[in-house]
């Protein structure tokens, strides 16, 4: 287990380093001059040169990269060109919003997918199965932003049950949860539709195995067999997909936060790209990458926790 953790942790660090290199190169190769967007198109070339020197943009690319990484490691991502405050404080301010949304979206995704997938598997080739498969086909086909607008029209505008957007902060938990409901549903529908299918096929595979027959011969109820014996054995492919989907969820928040007007990282990223706020964009992309890589790191550890046979092999 120790060696396993060491290997995974070094992989984690290497991945983030490669991401930082790609992000930095892309941001610096793409056309667009930050000094132009800060000073405006009427600014003189001299003024821009002064600013460029002050921002350190005149140094060679490699030197700028090393400086950036070195500072980033200390939590210093520079100051935002547009907001004039440290990028890190912008991120810290908005991270809880995005994490709440992503985690609640993931929780709802997993809950829906397991219930639907296991139900479908237990009614294999019967109406219950077809119903779930039809629903999931619909879920996969519907674009998240369109679904968001429908949800707002129905539950916020017409029924007035839930707020149409915005986030009051966690000081008022009740209001915060209410504000999160619609974005969470919009985020989870597509993801859970995919995951329900994975759950169904994985469970069907496990249901054919001999130990399920042993469980049946032991007189256990259908529910106990499905949730207690089949599901745990079907989890490995399911959490693999959960890990991959978490990336989709985090990037999905970019769209959802803009539709629901939520002050999170996704919205900040969208604004920063529009404003050519390079340092903020770089930091945000790194942030998203770190979240996704962390999720996959956790999935790798979960494998070993679920299956005792992997523990022996991972030493």
């Amino acid at each position, binding site marked *: 287990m120790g060696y396993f953790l060491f290997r995974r942790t070094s992989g984690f660090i290497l991945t983030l380093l490669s991401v930082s290199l790609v992000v930095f190169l892309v941001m610096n190769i793409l056309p667009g001059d930050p000094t132009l967007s800060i000073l405006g198109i009427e600014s003189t070339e001299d003024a821009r040169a002064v600013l460029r020197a002050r921002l350190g943009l005149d140094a060679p690319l490699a030197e700028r990269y090393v400086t950036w990484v070195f500072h980033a490691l200390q939590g210093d991502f520079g100051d935002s060109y547009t907001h004039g405050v440290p990028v890190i404080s912008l991120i810290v301010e908005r991270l809880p919003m995005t994490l709440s949304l992503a985690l609640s979206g993931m929780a709802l995704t997993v809950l829906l997918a397991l219930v639907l997938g296991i139900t479908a598997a237990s009614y294999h080739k019967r109406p219950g199965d077809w119903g779930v498969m039809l629903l999931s086909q619909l879920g996969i086909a519907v674009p998240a932003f369109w679904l968001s607008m429908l949800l707002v029209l129905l539950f916020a505008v017409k029924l007035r049950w839930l707020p149409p957007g915005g986030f009051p902060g966690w000081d008022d938990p009740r209001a915060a949860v209410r504000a999160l409901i619609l974005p969470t549903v919009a985020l989870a529908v597509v993801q859970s539709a995919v995951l329900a299918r994975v759950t169904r096929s994985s469970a069907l595979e496990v249901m054919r195995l*001999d130990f399920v027959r042993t469980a049946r011969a032991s007189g256990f109820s259908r529910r106990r067999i499905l949730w207690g014996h089949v599901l745990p054995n079907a989890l490995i492919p399911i959490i693999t997909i959960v890990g991959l989907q978490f990336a989709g969820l985090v990037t999905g928040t970019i769209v959802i936060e803009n539709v629901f007007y939520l002050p999170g990282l996704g919205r900040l990223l969208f604004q920063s790209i529009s404003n050519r706020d390079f340092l903020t964009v770089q930091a945000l992309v790194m942030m998203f990458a770190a979240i996704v890589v962390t999720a996959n790191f956790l999935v790798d550890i979960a494998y070993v926790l679920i299956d005792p046979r992997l523990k022996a092999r991972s030493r």
Partner: protein
Amino acid sequence: MIEVQNLSVRVGDTRAVRRVNLSIGAGERLGVVGESGSGKTMLALALMGMVPDGLTVDGVIRIDGNDLSRASETTWAAYRAQKIAMIFQEPMSALNPLRRIGDIVAEPLLVHQGISRNDARQKVLALFDETGIPDANRRLQQYPHQLSGGQRQRVLIALALACDPSLLIADEPTTALDANIALRITDLLVRLSRERQMALLFISHDLSAVSRTTEDLLVMYGGDIVERGKTRHLLASPSHPYTSGLLSARPRIEQNAGPRRLPTIPGTVPSLFDLPPGCRFAGRCDRELPICRATIPQPAATVSGGFASCHLLNQPSQDQTGQAPR
């Protein structure tokens, strides 16, 4: 305690098991032999109420006087483990790989008897002791993949015995095991049946395992019981040509016997969907009569004191000693 009358398992119009009658009382040990595809596993699954979807069961299955042939899945579940338990051929895959052995064997106790975790643990240790699993305290914490095949089969037996069933069905319990381990497992089953006064239905294609384990024997072929009787007598003087064929196809070590080719029964068990209209063994039988292909033979008394369904037994002019031709 278990009584079966006219039991058939059908796939549409075809019968995988045809009109089987049997009964096993407390402490009795009944064997079922036959090749793969003879319907013996299907018979066992029918007795557990576990035939695969799409198959139908006809006839009467009476357990402790209650007819279960039309019982729902929930009713059956109440009988499984507590009245009838079953162990399977593949000890390697028959245990949930993610659970500790102790938890696996304790589960039926917790579910069916509602006893405390601590009491269940004590009971599991007693079961391990009874089924000859050494080092019980350490085994509780181990996972199935850490055990050998023989140990896993013992765990399966302990699991089956957890709720004190009155009948244990063992479907080819020794097939996947080494010969010397198989021997110990069959001895264990006999001992458990004696000590617990538990009925045992032992299914195997291995005649020596069956002869060591059981008192009474059914020989199945193509879903039919072709011969039945006391195991010892039946194997000593088989009446049905199929039983004789099975016996002579057994490898033996004989003194002064030079190298010989192992006799086999020609052909294979006919497909369920392609059965002959008369005796199902017709076409593979070395003593076939003209009547065999047309008429289904009825059971008749044999010299071994049992019954066999074979036209040879009703032929006055034919050899009626029941001795198998060599």
